[in-house]
């Protein structure tokens, strides 16, 4: 009985891996790094995380968690509250509806898919922010951020993949 309970707890904790990793990455990129201009173009790690987990384990990154992660990011960065949640939720619903397409495909296909949806998400948030502030926000940082995010994608998905294999096999 206790062994069963412990096993369940362990399973539950393991199931938190996607959310916990995303949260940790989000905090890491918010740290003040001594790199000129980095703060303005920090890669959108939440975008990568939501895309990846929506393909492989959408059950472990449910709608509520996606919403909360977006909220946390907006609070951390000082962006309009709700902005990132909205973009991440839209991204999640699109990817989840297409996820069967990615199963059994190579990594390149997955990355290519990310290159298709990430610009969409960037343009969407840029438009929302411009509407919010009632001013055309300079799109340059958004562009640089997009490029960095796409470039970082293989590294992060490799990390997520490792976690998936070691921690989430039986979950």
């Amino acid at each position, binding site marked *: 009985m206790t062994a069963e309970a412990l096993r369940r707890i362990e399973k539950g904790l393991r199931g938190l891996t996607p959310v916990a990793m995303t949260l940790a990455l989000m*905090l*890491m990129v*918010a*740290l*003040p*790094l*001594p*790199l*000129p*201009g*980095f*703060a*303005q*173009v*920090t890669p959108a790690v939440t975008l990568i995380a939501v895309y990846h987990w929506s393909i492989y384990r959408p059950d472990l990154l449910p*709608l*509520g968690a*996606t*919403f909360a992660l*977006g*909220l*946390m990011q907006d*609070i*951390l*960065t*000082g*962006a*309009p*509250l*709700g*902005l990132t*949640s*909205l973009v991440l*939720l*839209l991204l999640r*619903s699109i990817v989840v509806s297409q996820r069967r397409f990615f199963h059994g495909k190579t990594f390149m296909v997955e990355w290519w898919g990310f290159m298709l949806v990430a610009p969409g998400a960037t343009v969407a*948030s*840029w438009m*929302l*922010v411009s509407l*919010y*502030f009632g*001013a055309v*926000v*300079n799109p340059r*940082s*958004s562009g640089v*951020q997009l490029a960095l995010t796409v470039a970082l994608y293989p590294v992060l998905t490799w990390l997520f993949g490792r976690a998936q294999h070691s921690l989430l096999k039986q979950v």
Partner: protein
Amino acid sequence: MRYPGGSLKHMTLPVKGWIQRFALVLFIGAALGLMVMGRADVRLIERLRVVMTDIATPVLDVLSRPVASVSEAIEYGRGLLALNAENARLREENARLRNWESVARRLGRENAALRALLNMADDPRLSFVTARVVADSGGVFVRTVLINAGARDGLRNGQAVITGDGLVGRVVETGERSARVLLLTDLNARVPVVVEQSRVPAILAGDNSDRPRLSFIPVNATVSPGERIVTSGQGGMLPPGLPIGTVAAIEDGVVRVEPFVDWATLEYVRVLDYALPGVLPSTRSAGRAGPLQ
């Protein structure tokens, strides 16, 4: 036995999908609602933000320490390499500053004497709180940093944040132990300034680029590159004379200012407690603060 199971599945699947869709609509609606409420400056949203930032700041504080140590170590190594040249430069600067010191002393005495003669009202005393930048968060659309001091250290919204180089920005959100600083370069930052020499007034307006621009310059006034820009003190929120930057370029009638502050190495900042007596409601005095002069 197969039949009921099958029928149950037939029934639950659409229901599950329907619930999922409903939840999606609900969450998207919530996100949109938050944005609309945030735009309308709803008090509750701001409270939520402040409370969450307060929770996150100690975590960021701990996490950012190793980062700070590493960059300090790198700085130290660099300093060792350039020790001789730096020493020579500092000696020269020291000689120059000694000269300035005697000038400043003389002017200070003269100023005090003239003020006494004119019976001029004293500027309010300045005190400050030093805080560490724990998150250089900002991101693509906003230029802000989080600092590890808040209302319990005497911080209030609107206070000026400076480094040794010049003005950094203003406190816009104050939690119990954290605060968010809106940098000069943010889209929403507006600072009343003057050109130091010619006393031409203007408003320094951020636009998310590294060089904010000067707007509302009087029509007949001229501003030329290289001139120093300082705060004017209008509005009573910022002390007058805080250095901001120099006029960097004038392109198509847009005057751009290069701030003195190095945004990449923003580590410790000072939050000034400055309030004109009688203009703003007085608050409790800042802890850990000392007089500036």
